[in-house]
């Protein structure tokens, strides 16, 4: 819901802007104002949003508007790219020590973040990769925390090392490492108690564990629903303990997960995994691009951008040519067929319209006007024309129209209506050079966001 209104807002911002070759400062500012709101709604930290938006603005002003996009979508494209690159352009994995050396992983985070569950999930994942893990119960504070790890370890068929709740976590970690060496484990996963980032003693404890045993991967587990405070938490853990990676838990919820961006921005550490459920198998790889579109809450626009990119890369020349023909009013039935073909590649008209900002509410009207079935009927009419008729619409006299109607099995009135609409559209195109032919030749869909569809 939140994002329907965002796409709608963007749509309103840009309803008067079409056919521009470059993003102006005003375009960018207007779009980024809405982007800023969306990011705040997604819980990205206010200061991170401010800096991020500023950095994007610098890059976006003056950028060329890509074929097939309107200025608003172009800004979103840049925002998305920057978000993906900020969150780590590709997925990262846990680094293991070479050969038979033991890799020590330490889980840390606030209370209730999901450390114990995540530790067991990671152990299970590593087991599939042929690693022999040892889960270590270093949470000696929370009632039944040890038991919870033991039960989970059993479910995963991974050994759990514990010494009760009367021994210090530092000593437990040391003993666990010795145990692992003796018993041929190649991974040691330390489950630590949840703690507040401002609890000096407890933060020191983690640093002491790291002094006592060599920890190769310190992973911060963060609840995906975390709000503005995520930056403080991540920063403190990184400064006081030192982080190597992040796991985002509870991603099976419906939070937008803006904390991911905040944390990445303040620590620079990669996000490795996301928790997708309570079951111990539900741990997945982190994909920066998916996360970006989730935070932005504009998956619809993003997939439109993708499709536009994929198609217009191939068809750029054709669309350029078509656009220039449109401008001259020389658009004929062959061009019509070609544009239909393009549209089909993009997933059909209703799918395209559905992705257009601002179309949500008006979908009903537009669909009844130009639904895909109707388009197929129009296409059939064109296919019943001779090549000469397609090239030169003026040839169509009543007897030719009658022949066409018979050829496509439709009523003569339908053929008449279609030809009339076509002529009107031709006129419209001539009157709207801005819409159809920016200097880069923006093709059929350039600036179409306003809902003015020639057919």
């Amino acid at each position, binding site marked *: 819901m939140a994002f329907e209104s965002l796409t709608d807002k963007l749509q309103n911002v840009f309803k008067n802007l079409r056919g521009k070759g470059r993003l102006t400062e005003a375009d960018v500012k207007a779009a980024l104002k809405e982007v800023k709101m969306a990011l705040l709604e997604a819980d990205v930290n206010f200061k991170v949003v401010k800096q991020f938006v500023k950095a994007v603005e610098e890059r976006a002003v003056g950028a060329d508007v890509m074929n097939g996009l309107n200025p608003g979508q172009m800004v979103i494209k840049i925002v998305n790219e920057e978000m993906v*690159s900020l969150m780590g352009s590709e997925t990262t994995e846990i680094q293991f020590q070479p050969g038979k050396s033991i890799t020590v992983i330490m889980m840390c985070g606030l209370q209730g973040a999901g450390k114990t569950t995540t530790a067991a999930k990671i152990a299970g994942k590593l087991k599939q990769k042929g690693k022999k893990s040892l889960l270590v119960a270093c949470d000696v504070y929370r009632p039944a925390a040890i038991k919870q790890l033991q039960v989970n370890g059993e479910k995963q068929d991974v050994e759990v090392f514990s010494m009760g709740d009367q021994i210090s976590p530092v000593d437990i970690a040391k003993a666990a490492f010795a145990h692992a060496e003796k018993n041929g484990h190649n991974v040691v996963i330390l489950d630590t108690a949840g703690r507040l980032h401002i609890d000096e003693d407890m933060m020191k404890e983690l640093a002491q564990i790291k002094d006592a045993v060599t920890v190769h991967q310190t992973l911060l587990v963060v609840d995906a629903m975390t709000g503005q405070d995520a930056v403080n938490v991540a920063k403190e853990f990184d400064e006081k303990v030192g982080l190597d990676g992040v796991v985002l838990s509870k991603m099976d919820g419906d939070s937008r997960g803006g904390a991911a961006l905040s944390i990445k921005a303040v620590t620079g550490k990669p996000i490795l995994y996301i928790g997708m459920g309570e079951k111990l198998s539900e741990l997945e790889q982190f994909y920066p691009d998916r996360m970006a579109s989730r935070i932005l809450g504009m998956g619809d626009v993003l997939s439109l951008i993708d499709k536009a990119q994929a198609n217009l890369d191939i068809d750029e020349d054709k669309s350029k040519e078509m656009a220039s023909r449109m401008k001259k009013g020389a658009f004929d039935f062959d061009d019509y067929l070609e544009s239909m073909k393009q549209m089909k590649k993009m997933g059909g008209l209703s799918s395209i319209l559905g992705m257009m900002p601002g179309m949500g509410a008006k979908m009903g009207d537009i669909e009844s006007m130009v639904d895909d079935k109707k388009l197929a009927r129009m296409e059939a009419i064109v296919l019943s024309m001779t090549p000469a008729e397609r090239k030169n619409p003026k040839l169509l006299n009543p007897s030719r129209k009658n022949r066409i109607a018979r050829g496509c099995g439709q009523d003569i009135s339908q053929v008449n209506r279609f030809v009339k609409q076509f002529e009107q559209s031709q006129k419209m195109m001539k009157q709207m050079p801005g819409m159809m032919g920016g200097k880069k030749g923006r093709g059929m869909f350039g600036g179409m966001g306003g809902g003015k569809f020639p057919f």
Partner: protein
Amino acid sequence: MENEKKSFFGRLKEGLSKTRDNIVNGIDSVFNGASEIDADFYEELEENLIMGDIGVNATDSIIERLKAAVKEKHVKEPSACRQLLIDGIREQMQVGETAYDFEQKQSVILVIGVNGVGKTTSVGKLAGKLKDQGRKVILAAADTFRAAAGEQLTEWANRAGVEIIGGAEGSDPASVIYDAVNAAKARKADVLLCDTAGRLHNKKNLMDELKKMNRIIEQEFPNAHRENLIVLDGTTGQNALQQAREFGEVTNLTGIILTKMDGTAKGGIAVAIQSELHVPVKYIGVGEQIEDLQKFDPDQFVNALFDIEDGTEENI
């Protein structure tokens, strides 16, 4: 390419630490720093509210109301604006006179929320509090899903010195509730406190399970005073509003326990929830010990929200 990306990131990070250093925390810096009530002033105010997790919408409406009050009362000084804002939010966050009636009545309290927010801990703390008031308390361990959840609550029952009714891991939580309700009736308990498994509000089957537990209490103990308390983690952002909305669809929410308020998060989303759903915060959790549960105090909350040092002595 690589360099360009790095410098983008570098710039971002640099900017962040700068802003962090430059901005003196707290709303008083806004009020004291501004010389007049202008757009900049409101923008800084807005920033403060959003940083407290109040959210864009609730922040907008707070600022709008403040602007109206400033106009109506012909306020000219930023510092005079301060009290208006504080009073407004404090007013809104009042708990209501009947909020703690359950302390005196025979009641069933269902404690619900998403995973890891502090339900079990809060149940334990609340049991301790009620026990101290001389009430006879029984705990129902209806989290039969999470590993060792029963053991965790048993430890709390021991700490509070109250009875507990449980079920095996994997058993039907509704049947635990059924047993506990009947035990509470038979043993003439004053308060039955039900701990439940964490569940994300967007999982229909788990919400249905909760509905069933709620129905069993209604059917088996129609005369009991009912409380349905949602536990919200104070560090949670905008999603907490959605949680309150969805849990409110399944049970009639009577209050919020806002936990982990001993950290640096402000719990501002509770303001948004109060204004949209009219569910009051009744308790805040301020630590992991049994005494770390306090009745909600709007003054303290607002002071903490704005990092105001003076005011009440009590430290949150």
